[in-house]
């Protein structure tokens, strides 16, 4: 057991190191960082100053070592040049927002998806089953930014029931959560349905039935316990993915989250900011995957 933990930890570290290195090089691949940071008409001396300030005139491996050292020893993600504040602070500011959205979305998906899946499996072939599967397939095929926009069209533009975006007050949570939840719910419905169907065909179910147990007992007491195993796995995976912030949904609803923040700075080719964004995604995903 300890050995497993060690291997798991070692692999996680190696993975994180790979990611950190990849981020470092990706950021520099897009051109001389000093040129990107400086205003367009800056004279050469200014560019040179920027280089010196951020050690960009050092050989690349020196920069890399410094970057690693700062990161590991001091937890220093660098400074945001645009706003002269620590990139980490900025990310921490918005950090809780994405998980909140993700958590709510997964919760809603579970509440709706699991019962629906169970019902569809138990009443296999009925209209409920067919409708559930059809709805799930349909939802999985729609691009989520379009679903989000259509919701805005109907509920904000036409009906004026809900705000179009931002993160103010409970009404502004409804549509973003719904948009994220659509896809996740569809996945859960299909997963639960196939999982329960598998269990319903197994030996112990037949045994329970032949013992004369009521169908409801068979399902709730025996089948569900086993069928929900893969659901737990998928829940952690989904949480891991969504924690990183769904860029598209956040952009459409102007939700201040990790995905969108990373996006806006990716957009400005901001050297240091995108790095923390990437690392947050990774951290969230590793625990989820390890489970």
């Amino acid at each position: 057991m300890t050995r497993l933990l060690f291997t798991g930890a070692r692999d996680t570290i190696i993975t994180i190191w790979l990611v950190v290195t990849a981020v470092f090089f990706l950021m520099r691949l897009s051109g001389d960082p000093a040129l990107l940071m400086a205003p367009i008409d800056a004279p050469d001396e200014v560019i040179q100053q920027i280089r010196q300030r951020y050690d960009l005139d050092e050989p690349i491996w020196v920069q890399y070592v410094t970057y690693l050292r700062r990161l590991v020893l001091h937890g220093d993600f660098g400074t945001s040049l645009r706003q002269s504040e620590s990139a980490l602070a900025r990310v921490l500011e918005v950090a809780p927002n994405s998980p909140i959205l993700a958590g709510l979305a997964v919760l809603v998906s579970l509440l709706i998806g699991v019962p629906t899946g169970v019902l569809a499996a138990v009443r296999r072939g009925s209209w409920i089953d067919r409708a559930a599967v059809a709805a799930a397939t349909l939802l999985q095929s729609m691009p989520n930014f379009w679903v989000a926009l259509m919701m805005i069209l109907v509920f904000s533009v036409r009906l004026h029931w809900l705000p179009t975006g931002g993160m103010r007050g409970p009404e502004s949570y409804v549509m973003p959560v719904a948009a994220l939840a659509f896809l996740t719910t569809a996945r859960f419905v299909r997963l639960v349905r196939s999982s329960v169907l598998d269990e319903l065909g197994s030996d112990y179910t037949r045994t329970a039935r032949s013992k004369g147990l009521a169908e409801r007992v068979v399902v709730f007491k025996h089948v569900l316990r086993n069928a929900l195993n893969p659901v737990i796995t998928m829940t952690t995976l989904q949480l891991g993915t969504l924690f990183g912030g769904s860029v598209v949904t956040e952009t459409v609803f102007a939700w201040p989250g990790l995905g969108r923040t990373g996006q806006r700075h990716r957009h400005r080719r901001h050297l240091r900011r995108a790095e923390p964004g990437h690392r947050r995604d990774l951290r969230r995903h590793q625990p989820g995957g390890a489970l």
Partner: protein
Amino acid sequence: MRSDAAGILSLAVLGLLVMAALAAPLLTPYHYNEGSVTERLLPPFSPGHVLGTDALGRDLLTRIIYGSRVSLLVGAASVLLAGTIGTVIGLLSGYLGGRFDRMVTRIIDAQLSFPFMILALTLAALLGPSLRNVIITLVVSSWVIYARLVRGQVLEEREREYVQAARALGASTARVTFRHLLPNVVPNVIVLASLEVGRMIIAEASISFLGYGIQPPLPSWGKMVAEGKDYLFTAWWISALSGAAIGLTTLCANLAGDWLRDRVGR
């Protein structure tokens, strides 16, 4: 479970879409990039424009049909390329084992822990927006899925008797992997690929929606939805119809993939 009718119907619709995409110039009286200032933002069913026009006066039906070319091309190309690369790497990694396999597994795990969209968007932002770069981005982001699947299967198959028999007869590594293992791996890869097509179409649409993908003059459905976003209050049909096109195509791809899986999968 799923009736054959749905699967075959969606294959038929896909076929129609492909034909429409290829025959685009014949089907559309307008050019997809010619706008008319006097005919901006016309609603559907206006005379001469069945689906209306966009902000620049370009006929929406034309743009949607031409946009299908982009989506179908990206979907097919990215899946073919990623599938091939992933399968080959998975085959070799699973069969050869050793340090090569360990290294590949680390890379696969590392990449899989990155949320797909974030990786794709970063690559797209770095490479610059273009059709070719979108395909490259999607291929790089998605090859790992095939590799992981194939590797898992190879690990199973490699202990089977036919493999041992082949090796006893002196077959080289290349022969064993490509002549014996590959045919047993391909069915599952095809099933995965058919499901990935839909995902790639949506991914391209999302990348273009955010502005990192296909650029004008090529019409991309995702970009069209983004363009229509500014007119949601007035000319909502631009976004609605473009997005519906994406959804319909993806739905057909997914249904066809499900049907395929029911027929082919183990």
